[in-house]
């Protein structure tokens, strides 16, 4: 028996440990290498952890992600030059999903940008963070300060019971709505909390000083609503939520329009342009793209995987970029790019999974309804 599509170790010099490494091991997590770090892929099992998060609250250690801050006069303009988001109207305590774009509009990473008052807080993908930092240093003017907060851990608490649980530690969260953030004081420890996440559920992301992460994780999993959840369920949850995973569903070969992320380009930015790749992206907005990112629901139990060809008869019309069994739905789902004329909801296609044709239907995303607290 050999795994075909397992998470192979990243090609890194030395795998690093994160602040909660020993905490995960104490809980019998299976650790894998991801983005250059030892990370917990699962504790009791991906399906059980996935379903727990949909029903209760799951605690995710996402300390591999890059926590950056950008400050200085002209920070808004500097950020708007490289991203298509409208940060000028972003009030303190509000956040936006955005994308770092190369000069042709290709997606270098997707990220969250928060107006944190005296600076902008950026949370970027762990696997891209070093490249992102290099890119930001290169493209931000000299008078803008870029700081990488390597001394901060990042925990996510996600699920319908996340708010009830977290309010015991940080009552201020009752004042936050989806995509809002603020500072809490937990017995003298500052917690920067945003109501956001990567599961489609209500939930929070909590930036905590690394030396307090253990105590915070302990305090949270001590609650009946909360269990630790690994990266495996994080992936199946985000797939059901229709959220793209950078490096798979989003790459420099994609741009925001074909990726279906045009909500992240505001009216003003469309009118004014002035961001990386604007010429190309504004043309695509007007004329449409050759391919579109779509959701696929598959018949049966066999899952399609990244790289599988999407077929219409004998013609390849697209490629799967993420796929797997959807624990909340009980059947496999996938995301991929297909030719625009095959991207309509209800289009019947097939996926070639190692020589076998599986019936697949284009369905709207999210696959599982979002339950954000708005």
């Amino acid at each position, binding site marked *: *028996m*050999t*795994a075909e599509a397992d998470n192979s170790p990243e090609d890194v010099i030395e795998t690093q440990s994160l602040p909660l490494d020993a905490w995960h091991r104490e809980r019998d997590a*299976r650790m894998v290498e991801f983005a250059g770090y030892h990370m917990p892929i699962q504790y009791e*099992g991906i*399906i059980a952890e996935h379903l727990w998060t949909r029903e209760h609250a799951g605690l995710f250690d996402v300390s591999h992600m890059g926590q950056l801050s950008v400050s200085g006069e002209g920070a808004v303009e500097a950020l708007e030059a490289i991203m298509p988001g409208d940060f000028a109207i972003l009030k303190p305590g509000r956040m936006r999903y955005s994308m770092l774009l190369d000069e042709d509009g290709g997606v270098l990473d997707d990220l969250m940008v928060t107006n944190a008052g005296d600076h902008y807080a950026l949370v970027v993908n762990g696997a891209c963070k070093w490249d992102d930092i290099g890119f930001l240093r290169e493209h931000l003017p000299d008078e803008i300060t870029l700081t990488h907060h390597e001394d901060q851990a990042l925990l996510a608490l996600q699920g319908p019971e996340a708010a009830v649980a977290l309010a015991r530690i940080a009552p201020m969260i009752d004042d936050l709505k989806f995509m809002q953030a603020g500072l809490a004081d937990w017995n003298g420890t500052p917690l920067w909390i945003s109501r956001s996440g990567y599961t489609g559920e209500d939930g929070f992301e909590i930036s905590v000083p690394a030396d307090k992460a253990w105590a915070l994780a302990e305090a949270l999993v001590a609650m009946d609503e909360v269990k630790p959840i690994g990266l*495996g369920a994080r992936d199946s949850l985000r797939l059901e939520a229709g959220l793209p995973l950078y490096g798979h569903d989003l790459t420099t070969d994609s741009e925001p329009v074909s990726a279906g992320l045009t909500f992240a380009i505001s009216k003003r930015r469309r009118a004014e342009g002035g961001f990386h790749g604007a010429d190309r992206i504004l043309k695509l907005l007007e004329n449409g793209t050759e391919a579109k990112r779509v959701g696929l629901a598959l018949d049966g139990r*066999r899952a399609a995987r990244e790289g599988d060809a999407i077929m219409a008869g004998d013609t390849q019309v697209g490629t799967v970029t993420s796929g797997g069994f959807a624990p909340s739905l009980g059947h496999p789902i996938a995301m991929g790019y297909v030719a625009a004329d095959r991207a309509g909801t209800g289009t019947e296609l097939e996926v070639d999974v190692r020589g076998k044709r599986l019936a697949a239907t284009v369905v709207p995303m999210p696959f599982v309804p979002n339950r954000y607290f708005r």
Partner: protein
Amino acid sequence: MPRYFTEDHEWIDVDGDVGTVGITDYAQSQLGDITFVELPEKGDTLKKGDAPCVVDSVKAASDVYAPVSGEVVEVNGDLDGEPELVNNDAEGDGWFFKIRLSNADELSGLMDEDKYSSFVDNL
């Protein structure tokens, strides 16, 4: 009934000229939640090293190889509706298929339980 193991984590129980094949408990624990098992068909002729089965877990698809050559005489239909049998009882009710051995000499290249157990310990 002697049981043999492969380095690819298949097991085979041999009774006369028929062997029952599955994946080991170690293999299922590494794969995690199994969501689908693709089986060969009764009557298929397999060569040692063929990959007649695919195991889908939440994360990945894995091939399962034929530990010996022969003809498939039975498949475990229960895995269709209950792939989790492989997680719950990999070396029992979670068996995959039965094969009539065409060359029993192939068994001599496989490991016994003790050898397999030290093989796994060294992984």
